[in-house]
């Protein structure tokens, strides 16, 4: 009988977990994946999980991906739940992306820029043909090495700013908002917004960013610069009092240059949208930059008409861990409320039928 079936929750949960473990491993005749393989060969997945979990740790991200059977949202959730238990030693100094060891750097707004255009390890101009040689694990062709050392590469946004063409971002010494420790309040300042975007779901960022290009809050974007490479992370330990290098992270940074702004009181200038993501993540950084710019609409005195321009809407719905939890919670039992609703419908129906019979 159905009523008995909901009893024994403990045994059901244990059995479900055991089945799950067995299913995760797959066919035991096939060698198990190592986290080194995942970290080394599924780099884009690892980077996405690190971004959405707000934790840079390729090994743990690989572990999470393996444990989640490749479900990247689940993997980000695992990593985030771990992150929240970690103690804090301190905060790094702001990263200096101008001193990035650049592997890739493109600007769509100049034919050439100081430091040059560098394609890097991109798939941009590959033909999207399935490569069947990968089935046989053929070794890749040798990649040529550049002969000349890369010269200094100022950020394109700084070149524009030097001419006054880009709206200046006022410098601030205020300690940035911390989305992982404080509840987001609206209207959210830009530091909080950028944090929300940085850990937002890539698909959501992409879809919302895309919507701005289709007339829902557009701002005439140009890809001013996309650069990818390793950046040093520096920390000032209390006991030393000067910065030390504690390692490096690979980042993609995107500076969008958008429609100009200004009028009688302020000379015309371009406005900027900013995106930053772990690893090689053009799509993520670009979508983030589009949204960062769209969400400045109110501050810039533009009409706020589209969802992408509404920070409360974007930030409340960008977090895929919150979203997946709430969407999926619908499968939890709701029978008490449904019973109440069903009784109400029956009562209203009976009243209406009785009235009709009069």
């Amino acid at each position: 009988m159905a009523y008995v079936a909901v009893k024994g929750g403990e045994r059901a949960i244990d059995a479900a977990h055991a089945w799950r473990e067995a299913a995760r491993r797959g066919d035991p005749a096939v060698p198990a994946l190592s986290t080194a393989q995942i970290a080394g060969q599924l780099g884009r997945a690892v980077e996405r999980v690190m971004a959405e979990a707000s934790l840079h740790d390729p090994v743990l991200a690989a572990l999470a991906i393996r444990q989640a059977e490749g479900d990247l949202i689940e993997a980000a959730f695992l990593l985030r739940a771990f992150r929240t238990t970690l103690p804090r030693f301190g905060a790094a100094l702001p990263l200096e992306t101008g001193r990035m060891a650049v592997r890739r750097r493109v600007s769509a707004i100049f034919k050439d820029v100081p430091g040059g255009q560098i394609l890097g390890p991109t798939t941009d101009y590959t033909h999207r043909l399935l490569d069947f040689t990968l089935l046989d694990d053929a070794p890749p062709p040798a990649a040529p090495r550049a002969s000349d050392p890369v010269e200094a590469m100022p950020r394109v946004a700084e070149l524009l700013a030097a001419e006054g063409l880009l709206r200046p971002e006022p410098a601030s010494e205020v300690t940035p908002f911390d989305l992982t420790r404080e509840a987001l309040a609206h209207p959210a300042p830009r530091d909080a917004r950028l944090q929300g975007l940085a850990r937002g779901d890539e698909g959501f960022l992409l879809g919302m960013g895309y919507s701005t290009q289709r007339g829902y809050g557009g701002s005439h974007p140009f890809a001013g610069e996309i650069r990818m490479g390793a950046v040093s992370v520096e920390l000032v330990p209390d006991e030393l009092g000067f910065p030390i290098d504690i390692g490096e992270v690979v980042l993609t940074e995107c500076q969008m240059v958008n429609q100009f702004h200004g009028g009688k009181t302020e000379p015309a200038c371009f406005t900027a949208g900013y995106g930053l993501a772990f690893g090689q993540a053009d799509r993520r950084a670009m979508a983030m930059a589009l949204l960062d710019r769209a969400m400045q609409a109110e501050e810039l005195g533009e009409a706020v008409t589209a969802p992408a321009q509404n920070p409360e809407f974007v930030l409340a719905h960008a977090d895929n861990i919150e979203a997946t939890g709430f969407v999926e919670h619908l499968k939890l039992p709701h029978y008490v409320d449904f019973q109440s609703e069903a009784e109400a419908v029956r009562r209203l129906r009976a009243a209406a039928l009785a009235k009709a019979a009069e």
Partner: protein
Amino acid sequence: MRGYNFAYLDEQTKRMIRRAILKAVAIPGHQVPFGGREMPLPYGWGTGGIQVTAAILGPQDVLKVIDQGADDTTNAVSIRRFFARVAGIATTTRTTEASVIQTRHRIPETKLRADQILVYQVPQPEPLYRLEPSRVAARRLHALAEYGAMHVRLYEDIARLGAVAISYDYPVLVNRRYITSPSPIPAFDNPKLHRMAALQLFGAGREKRIYAIPPYTEVRSLDFEDHPFRPHRADGACALCGARDSYLDEVLTDDRGGRMFVCSDTDYCAGRAA
């Protein structure tokens, strides 16, 4: 549990949550933002209630967890095991034995005492969200006690259907000031909110809000003088214990319209049947 603090959260986080709880108790029904943490359970599955429970639990506490009124529903089992594991505290299914009861969607039938705390899991703390999806705007409406629109919703139900059609998560006015969501409990449970001896704490993890109803606080379900609030239950008796005063779950027994009713509160039912 090895590697984790008592009741999972670190003490700094617990203090932050306790501060939010104290503020919530001081302003009954008002939603207090808190820096909700990622929990190892999904959002929407009780992370708010779990954080509140984790912040108030002491080693001597006895915890009961119910979902849909039952101790043996899978999510209740999961949360109870979580605390047994990370806090090593005693758990119970008996309402009278518990010092802290975490619940989803029900208030126990057994009257709670002043030495007990009821912690609700709340999916959506903002009672006005259907009328005003912007939380900035909703917060302003609360500040000004501008609640006409909520009554319009009740008015429209009566005009259209002859009665208020809200059957769960029925909005209440707490301490004559704040319109508050009682969480998705059936409207049948609303009268129990009023002047309850136990402290009632509400935790919304995803929305990062905590609110409270202190002991013996006035809680009124919104209504009209000529259409007073009426709690409803299925008209019948529990097939197991014969109760006619408890909230009943409907169980389909076959595909030919066969059904039976049983108490949703499993402890209440077991206590009567024994």
